[in-house]
């Protein structure tokens, strides 16, 4: 309760300062909160904001889910066959620090423009955290679970699906959490290349139309959705930890 109150106070203070600052400048350069919120509501009213959000969320969902599934599957594989991972590890370590944005020229060359570049960029941004956390998680599965699997004569495949995956899931979920953040950050970049819709496109479009109020409305929307996504995955993570019997989050 107290936390919510402090948050509200902070928010009101920010809006006040913003409004006061905006009075000093030309609204074409720096629109105030009143204008921005008004334009924001207008964008909702004519339905364009809802469309942009829907499009962006869909692209994000596809990129993220493909990254999550492939990251977990490959992570399980490499975590299990550790020797094989030793071959791939250096390659991944070189690839990982490259910003997905650096790939944009190639992405456009290979995939053209439209929905796919955004999806690919979100994929690239989300994939590595999931992959690496899964590999680490599989390596840390308590040996006793593997003994139990042997004990009850589970096949290798059963051991992976019934023991290793659920046992490492709390730690994998940490990677999934990290990935949702980075993936969302790169959504804007992805949608700036040749998209004709989405929140990233709205930013480019606002610039071309000299509408800083739309620009800020788009930025706010991205921030708010990012926050909601984070809260959602935090909640899911908490449920996982509760079900797995860990009262609080602890890694390793």
């Amino acid at each position: 309760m107290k936390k919510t109150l402090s948050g509200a106070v902070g928010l009101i203070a920010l809006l006040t300062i913003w409004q006061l600052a905006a009075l000093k400048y030309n609204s074409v350069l720096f629109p105030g909160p009143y204008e921005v919120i008004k334009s924001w509501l207008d964008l909702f009213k004519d339905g364009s904001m809802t469309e942009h959000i829907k499009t962006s969320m869909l692209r994000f969902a596809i990129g993220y889910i493909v990254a999550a599934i492939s990251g977990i599957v490959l992570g399980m594989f490499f975590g299990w066959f550790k020797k094989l991972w030793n071959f791939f590890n250096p390659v991944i370590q070189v690839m990982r620090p490259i910003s997905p944005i650096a790939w944009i020229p190639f992405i456009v060359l290979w995939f053209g423009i439209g929905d796919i570049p955004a999806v690919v960029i979100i994929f690239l941004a989300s994939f590595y955290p999931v992959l690496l956390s899964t590999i680490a998680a599989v390596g840390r599965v308590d040996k006793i679970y593997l003994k139990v699997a042997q004990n009850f004569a589970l096949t290798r495949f059963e051991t992976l699906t019934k023991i290793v995956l659920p046992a490492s899931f709390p730690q994998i979920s940490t990677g999934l959490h990290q990935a949702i953040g980075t993936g969302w950050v790169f959504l804007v970049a992805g949608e700036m290349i040749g998209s004709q819709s989405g929140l990233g496109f709205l930013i480019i479009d606002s610039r071309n139309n000299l509408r800083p109020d739309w620009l800020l409305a788009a930025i706010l929307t991205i921030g708010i959705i990012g926050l909601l996504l984070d809260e959602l995955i935090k909640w899911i993570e908490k449920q996982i930890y509760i079900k797995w019997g860990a009262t609080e989050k602890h890694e390793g």
Partner: protein
Amino acid sequence: MYIEVKNVSKDFKQHGQIFKALSDVSLDISKGEFLCLLGPSGCGKTTLLNAIAGFDKISSGSVKIDGQEVKGPSARNTTLFQNYGLLPWRTVQSNVELGLESRKLAKIEMHEISDKYINLVGLDAFKKNYPHQLSGGMQQRVAIARALAVDPEILFMDEPFGALDVITRANMQDEITRIWQEYKKTIIFVTHDIEEAVYLADRIVIMAPNPGRIKAVIKVSLGRGRDRDVKEFFNIRDNILDIFEMKNHDAIEYFL
């Protein structure tokens, strides 16, 4: 003999030095016997258990169960661990059903079996609970139910009650005795608790470290439903203390 351990040795390499966890151990165990492996830490009792259960490869010698060489863990035997090894993401019921799932039983049959063993250990009210919602003793009961559900011939128990408080521990000792009498399993039970061994075992195998070996085998000829404070009980315990050289007259050097 049902289980034949012949001249088994097990070496570990540690910092380039060879450490003899087991040295030339031979032991016969008959079907339906309750056998305790007793000794201080480092005496190789768990190593011996793992060798018979098939978890550890031995360096030399042979282990045979029912005439067949042990090559790896078998679904015919199950092991109970000190920290239970329950899967925290599964309910009590689905933990108990873990070993049954590969048998292609109908759901109802599977539930019938799991219900039977959950009732046996007195946890019927908790079958939808998760392990972390249960006390240590209850968790070990779940592990016992899970082990029994696959109807094993041998139960290996590696200090299964080591993490429990004294009272719960005594209850669990009664419980396992009752189950053993009812189901006639062969039980091989590792412990470092002398009284626990005297209370439970038909025979106690006393082991010593450096290198891990069998020091003595004691037959416990007390009837079941044993009393912990009768002379016969103390006699056997004293006998074991003697073998471990833990009695006062041997400790006289401490006063020098």
